[in-house]
């Protein structure tokens, strides 16, 4: 059964130096608050996995938490580059990071395999691309019935998966809706999982398009209102597009990035204090 914990305590318990972590969210429900907490706690040598590493992974990479990144698309959606990611790959700043690069289809198949207790997933993928030469975790497999050649990718089973969701009940059952991404698979594939939620309610009521992740496959639920910001939680908040745009300037330059981390992450104690620090509280819409 999931425990209801403070985010600080959940991160301290489940994210260790050297952990393999997945923080998923496909534009929607990205667990930014949890990413900040990992930086605050000074974790190092993380193997960070994500289909679409965006701002929060840029922060983790720039802050020196990550030694390896497994991913399929690393950009600031609608804005441009992830400058800290680029600086790490192009210039080894703040240090060298290893990258393991896949396609979305391959990453999705890897999470599904992980959630299914299989060691690999099968897809029609990567054929003819140069990714095959760069990524050792792409192999061919032969169909035993048709002799067709297909592609195999290994399961992903993170030490800990962190996601954000709309809400949970007091027993730790988690409910999310809207764009579901690969979050459920990432939680089910992980050895431990932390879910930050917009609110904790007495009883989950049905919501169209919602899925429930039962408490007994979740390790910790943390109440962090607006904890996906500048991403959003459908029904609770809107995507803060201007914040994504402003990140471009902040992250472009090492010094301004370091200052931002120093002031707004290391200089704050939790997500509320971070929100006041960057002045986003006014942008938080209430539950509609």
């Amino acid at each position, binding site marked *: 059964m999931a425990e209801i914990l403070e985010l600080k305590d959940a991160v301290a318990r489940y994210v260790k130096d050297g952990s393999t972590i997945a923080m998923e969210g496909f534009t929607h429900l990205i667990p930014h608050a949890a990413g900040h907490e990992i930086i605050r706690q000074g974790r190092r040598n993380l193997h960070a996995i994500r289909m679409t590493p965006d701002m929060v992974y840029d922060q983790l990479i720039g802050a020196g938490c990550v030694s390896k990144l497994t991913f399929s698309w690393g950009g600031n959606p609608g804005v441009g*580059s992830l400058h800290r990611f680029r600086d790490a790959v192009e210039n080894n700043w703040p240090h060298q990071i290893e990258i393991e690069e896949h*396609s979305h289809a391959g990453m999705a*198949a890897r999470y599904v395999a992980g959630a299914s207790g299989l060691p690999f997933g099968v897809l029609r993928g990567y054929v*003819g*691309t140069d990714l095959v030469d760069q990524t050792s975790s792409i192999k061919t497999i032969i169909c035993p019935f048709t002799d067709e050649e297909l592609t195999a990718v290994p399961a992903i089973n993170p030490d800990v998966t962190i996601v954000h969701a709309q809400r949970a009940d007091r027993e730790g059952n988690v409910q999310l809706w809207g764009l*579901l991404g690969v979050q459920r698979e990432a939680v089910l594939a992980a050895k431990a999982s932390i879910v930050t939620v917009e609110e904790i309610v007495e009883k989950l009521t049905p919501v169209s398009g919602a899925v429930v992740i039962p408490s007994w496959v979740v390790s910790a639920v943390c109440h962090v209102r607006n904890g996906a910001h500048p*991403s959003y939680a459908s029904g609770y908040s809107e*995507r803060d597009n201007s914040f994504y745009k402003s990140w471009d300037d902040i992250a472009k330059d090492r010094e301004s990035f370091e200052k931002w981390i120093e002031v707004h992450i290391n200089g704050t104690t939790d997500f509320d204090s971070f929100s006041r620090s960057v002045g986003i509280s006014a942008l938080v819409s209430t539950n509609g």
Partner: protein
Amino acid sequence: MAKTSTSASTSASTSANTISTDDLMIVNAARVLGTLAAAGKAVCFVGIGLPSTAANLARHLYSPEPVLIYESGCIGSKPTRLPLSIGDGELADTSDSVVSVPEIFSYWLQAGRIDVGFLGGAQLDKFGNINSTVIGSYDKPKTRLPGAGGAPEIAATAGQVIVIMRQTKRAFVDRCDFRTSFGFGDGPGHRERLGLRGGGPKIVITDLGVLEPDPETCELVQTQMHRGVTAEQCIENTGWKLRIAKNIFTTEAVTDREINALRELQSA
């Protein structure tokens, strides 16, 4: 959506509207979708930006409408305004069905249900291969790009691929530094040898006109130019020795109906 400023040579003007090169690409892509939809072949896998705008414009201009699928899990999206990101809530709220990301790639893309995939990238080579991974070498990159995303499997599987890219010497290269998405590979027969099920890049829509693969050589040939564009301009802005089709023709001017629908969509 940021629009590039209009240059005299690549714009037309209808009514009070000034047509940008983005507008030109969007309208021409929408027309292709309209034709495909009329033939019952317009289930589109779209990304954000010009493809999404073009696909939504086609939804407003043509009947039957194309069916829009976004990799964020939205099937049959009918956004009333242009989505700002692939995860825009508007996409989910107006969809026939929202599914998980793994399902979009397995049950929908991989299963061969997509008629049209849109792609773009930093480099396109003469055989329609696309690079969205890295400029320079993979190990010592000059510019690290975002990477593959959904592109490799869209390129492999979609009934056909429409590429939308600005035509420049830097982007239209003889050979991509990295092959992220497979077009016709090294030329004729290569897709077939690899067993790829999709049709590959059938049309490249640029700010200068349209390129299409030569059916025999698979090499991209300039087959259409927008009004006011010259063959020399196309050749100059292409990094390989570009062939101009003998029967090259000029794209239809953007109509009032088209530009008005586009402006309405953009201001919604």
